[in-house]
């Protein structure tokens, strides 16, 4: 086990009825652990537990080998930027950044705060109060304030969610700059893994307080470990054994007899059907079908048309080439074909 960076070792945090964990994850200096999950998954609870704002029931957090779990929040040396940013409304931008330095009675509080404001390009807004700042400016002040405390790790709760696309790109660049210059281990919480992809080195997926998967971006994209992670990452046509049912029709029976290209038999955790491998109405090299289906809706996609069809009660996304003309309208009966290799078992991609 590494002694450098931030280690979360079996941490369990409870607030009210909600329990999060046990979570095991590590993040090295200069790297980012993205904690992803839907609302209510326990992402913020986990961050607050790491900070010591919530008591941990078991497990521990170590920073560069030092055990943090028994230390009060103020002695943990963790920079935490909550989703609301929590800028002090009675202090202007400069005074917000000075705050951690003043608390430590640092004589160089003023110059250091000014240097941080310069670094993040907001020196011209030093006298403005939080309510007078834009969303991006507030983010920068919050980041500068967190760094003024000279933390040994940084924790961010949804740093990108409240920003428009341009400001989001700026923020990503800003965080990259912090990673390069300060080389701190960083934990970033997001409900949208896509926003974490550009920054994340490791990904931790939480669902209902449970850690579902931890790994690098290529690990999780190659092999999402659960149907939840697969769907959360944007995979479509994820079919679980429960959804597929026992034997209620030829299509379902045929799917249940499939196995992945590397031999992982279904039922595993789930089946993945690439939409590009699900065709509606054209012939070609096929693994199965044709199966009678009904069109539910369609939309234009970058490659043609995207159809949502229903086969024996199973809803599937199908990609249809544009050359075939306009797709069938909703309610129309079609046949779908599954191209070769379209079906694979989860964990066998």
């Amino acid at each position, binding site marked *: 086990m590494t002694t450098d960076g931030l280690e979360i070792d079996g941490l369990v945090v409870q607030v009210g009825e909600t329990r999060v964990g046990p979570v095991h994850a590590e993040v090295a200096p200069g790297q980012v652990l993205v904690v992803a999950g839907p609302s209510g998954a326990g992402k913020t609870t986990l961050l*607050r537990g790491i*900070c010591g*704002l919530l008591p941990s029931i078991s497990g521990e957090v170590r920073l560069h080998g030092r055990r943090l779990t028994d230390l*009060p*929040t*103020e002695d*943990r040396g*963790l*920079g*935490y930027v*909550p989703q*609301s940013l*929590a800028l*002090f*409304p*009675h*202090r202007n931008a400069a005074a917000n950044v000075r*705050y*951690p330095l*003043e*608390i*430590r*009675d640092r004589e160089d509080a003023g110059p250091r705060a000014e240097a941080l404001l310069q670094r993040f390009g907001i020196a011209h807004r030093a006298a403005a109060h939080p309510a007078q700042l834009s969303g991006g400016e507030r983010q920068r002040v919050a980041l500068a*304030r*967190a760094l*003024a*405390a000279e933390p040994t790790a940084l924790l961010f709760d949804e740093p990108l969610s409240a920003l428009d696309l341009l400001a989001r790109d700026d923020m990503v660049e800003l965080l990259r700059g912090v990673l390069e210059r300060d080389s701190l281990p960083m934990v970033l919480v997001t409900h949208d893994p896509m926003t974490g992809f550009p920054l994340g080195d490791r990904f931790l997926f939480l669902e209902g307080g449970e850690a579902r998967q931890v790994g690098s971006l290529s690990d999780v994209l190659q092999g999402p470990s659960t149907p939840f992670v697969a769907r959360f990452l944007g995979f479509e046509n994820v079919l679980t054994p429960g959804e597929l049912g026992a034997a209620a029709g030829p299509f379902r029976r045929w799917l249940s007899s499939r196995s992945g290209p590397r031999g992982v038999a279904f039922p595993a955790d789930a089946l993945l059907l690439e939409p590009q491998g699900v065709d509606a109405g054209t012939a070609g090299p096929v693994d199965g079908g044709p199966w009678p289906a009904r069109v539910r809706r369609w939309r234009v996609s970058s490659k043609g048309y995207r159809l949502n069809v229903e086969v024996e009660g199973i809803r599937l996304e199908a990609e249809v080439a544009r050359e075939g003309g306009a797709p069938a309208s909703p309610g129309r009966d079609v046949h779908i074909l599954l191209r070769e290799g379209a079906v694979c078992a989860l964990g066998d991609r």
Partner: protein
Amino acid sequence: MARVPSVVLALLSASLLALFVLPIVAIATYVPFSQILAVASDPAVEASLEFTLLASGIALALAVFLGVPLGYVLARRRFPGHALVESVVTLPVVLPHLVAGLALLFLFAPEAPLGALADRMGFPVVSTIWGVVLVMAYVGGAYTVLATAEAFRAIDPELLETARTLGASRGDVFLSVTFPLAFRGILTGALLTWARSVSEIGGLLILAYTVVPSPPYNGPVTQPITVYVYNLYALGDTSAALAVSSLLILVSFALFLAVRLLEARGRMPWRGRVLVP
């Protein structure tokens, strides 16, 4: 829902504002300024006013000293009987003040156990400044507690948590974030407490109609200013009653204005964990 026309809203608002302002305007137009100056230099009025300001100042200090912690506890702590305590705090606001005066007299009369104890400790209550302070703190203290509790409740707990992640201890957080953010609310509550104290009469008629010197008040025998005005009116000297009332209005208004201006001009800034005076 249909929108209430602006003119109707303006009329309704103006009616109430007129009710608030017109009596003061009536006094101001009836009493010439020279007469206000004349009563201000009357030794009896001077003694009554000075006494009232002293007593209300002590009552205010007492209300803030005890009321701010109570407001904080009500806002930030959950304990059995929380709702009951909150109801008790509002009791003086709804209780008729004559009844409050009678109750305090019953409690602090020299022959009552608590009154005897207060006497022995050097704080005689009936017809002394301490009686006046008690009545004022009783009728006005609730405003400080309620406004303080509301001010503390309005603070986003995430601000306090974040301050701790930035290295502030719990004490630092209170002094550098919680208290500065609640200060406006506390100040508002304190002003209301003071205003309520100065304007009190019901309880004072029972407990301290006339005040005899007793430390810290060492002046002549006097009356709280409201009782003094009532006395003038009861004796038929309406003109003098109005002149003293005008003086009281001017003093109160000047004090209110001074505090609000100081606050608005940011003369009470916060630096680090300390309040810069």
